[in-house]
């Protein structure tokens, strides 16, 4: 599904700042991997580089996604190929309604894949059903994208987009940040409902608590731009009990 090899990147505007220093990661179809790490370890940058955000220059390494060179693709092409990033800070777009936004996204992706557009009725039915599961009201669907949404509403809105777009690979960037326990359960239930043999997840998080609700198969610890340790779900628990410092000093030793 996704294979990252020796990925290096730096900031375009400040080439001295190297953020990723050789990331290796392989994600099989249906697998759920977590990437944990202290602040500044490069976790979010990894998600940005995978989604094609401007401002980063890949200096070495490769990323293949479903057999294609991901780094050669434009952000919208990556989305059409099945990659989805749930943003840590979802963007507000005044004047563009949530529904218009979602419909343009669905139909743009279908067009790019050479599929027929979804009919207005079909789209409405699908979106309303998925929204109801995430406790998103019709009124929220009509409002401008993320404008006036609470932190929890924004994150649920991300999961709604994911549910409607049905990507092959979901990157969740600090989706638990800013969420209370109830909102986190709702978001996790939304994510778990999407788990399946053909869909992979890369869950980026600082804390273990989200992983109580979205159980990973594999946990990676990232530090200073590299994966420094990989293990089973118990590795996340170790982070919780020991903190990053112990694990990092051990892996450095």
């Amino acid at each position, binding site marked *: 599904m996704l294979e990252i090899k020796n990925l290096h990147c730096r900031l375009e505007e400040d080439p001295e700042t190297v953020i990723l220093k050789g990331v290796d990661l392989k994600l099989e179809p249906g697998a759920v991997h977590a990437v944990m790490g202290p602040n500044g370890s490069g976790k979010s940058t990894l998600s940005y580089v995978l*989604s*094609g*955000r*401007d401002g980063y220059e890949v200096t070495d390494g490769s990323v293949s996604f479903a057999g294609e060179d991901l780094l050669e693709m*434009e*952000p*919208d092409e*990556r*989305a*059409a190929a099945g990659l*989805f*990033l749930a*943003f840590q800070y*979802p*963007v*507000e*777009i*005044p*004047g*563009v309604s949530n529904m*218009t*936004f979602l419909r*343009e*996204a*669905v139909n*743009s*992706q279908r067009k*790019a894949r050479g599929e027929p557009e979804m009919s207005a009725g079909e789209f409405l039915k699908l979106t309303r059903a998925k929204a109801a599961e995430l406790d998103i009201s019709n009124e929220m669907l009509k409002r*401008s*994208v993320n404008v006036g949404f609470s932190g929890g509403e924004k994150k649920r809105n991300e999961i709604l*987009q994911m549910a409607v*777009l049905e990507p092959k690979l979901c990157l969740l960037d600090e989706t638990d940040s800013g969420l209370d326990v109830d909102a986190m359960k709702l978001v996790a239930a939304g994510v778990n409902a999407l788990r399946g043999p053909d869909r992979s997840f890369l869950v980026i998080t600082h804390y273990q608590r989200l992983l109580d609700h979205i159980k990973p198969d594999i946990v990676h610890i990232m530090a200073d731009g590299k994966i420094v340790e990989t293990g089973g779900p118990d590795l996340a628990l170790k982070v919780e009990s020991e903190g990053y410092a112990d694990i990092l000093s051990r892996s450095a030793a």
Partner: protein
Amino acid sequence: MSETMDPRAKATEALLASGAADAGRGGLGALKEAAAARFRSMGAPMARDEYWRYLGPAFNQPKEGAEPADAASATAPSPFAAAEPLVAAFLNGRFAPEHSSDLAAEGVEIAPLGAGAAPGWAAEALGALEAEGQSPAPRPLAALNGALATDGIALRATGAVARPIEIRHLGETGGAVHLRHVIALAPGASMTVLESGVGAAGFSSVMEAEIGAGASLSHVRLQTDPRFQRAATHLFARLGAESQFKSFTLSGATAGEVARNEAMLWLEGDDASAHLAGAVLAREDGKIDNTVFVTHGALRGESRQVFKNVLNDTAQGVFQGKILVREGAQQTDGYQISQSVLLSERAAFNAKPELEIYADDVKCSHGSTTGALDEAALFYLRSRGVAPSIARRLLIEAFLAEAVEEIADAALADIAREESRKLVAALVA
């Protein structure tokens, strides 16, 4: 003798000589002498004049050999057709009955001005607001229009006019056209006036409107005809007590096109309300200038100016907006916003907001912003699979929405939105 003339005087005489041959001006003939004298006294606009700094003297240099439009597109259907308006059409500067509706409707008196004598009220009103509007800042092209106008329409509403009235400007020649319209609303009357087409390579129109107490005038203008070179329009409106005026203009310009839209409004009765809005989409080296002057002269007046500009390539946008609050015009509420999105590093937007306040209990605010499309929003859209051109289009439409939403009538707002979408598509293509 011409060698000794200074450049302004030379331009002034050249413009006065540029009008159509004087083949009868009907009710407008009476305007000619006084308007020509006014125009000569202030002269053609020059680049150093206060309100012409940004646009420059484009109107003194009409493009040579402007191409005649093809006859088929000259009479193309109006975008307003869906609103089923009563149409008063002008072809090459002359009232064209063959393209017009039967000019009879409940609650309104309609008379073309170019053929016979003007109705008494119109004869009296013609030129009055324009002359008053020449100070404190001169509006030379409005006076020039008075000197050269060949035709126009007089509209007088005495009640609620149900059907919108569309003034449609058609053209099939490359020449210059000067039209003069005069509007009056009796107390309590209401009317919607639409304008479409530009109709000539060199187009000029002046509309003078007296809005009686409690009356309401709505104005929606589509300045999207792609065949003009120069368009100068002036809108003068005086508002009585508790009256309302709402005006929206959609302007598009591309290579070689320059439009200057001036509006001068006086809120002279208490509790009057005036809203002016504009959506501007220009590309290539197109230039669009909105120059607005709102005078509050009575109690509790409310005015609002909302102008949105989207500029690509080397296009230029100008917004000059002034709110003048006279002594005694207490509890005035004046608001003005002009914003621009530049899609190219070579596009430019100049804004000149002005507040001049002589009353001590007023609320007035103005703001102006210029920037690129929001990169974060563009990336967010693209990360969901939306193609770049569609992402830009969505953000531009959202940016324009605040201006388009100033149109109260939903069906007319839909038409304006649809027309703006066509211009946006051309802009992001």
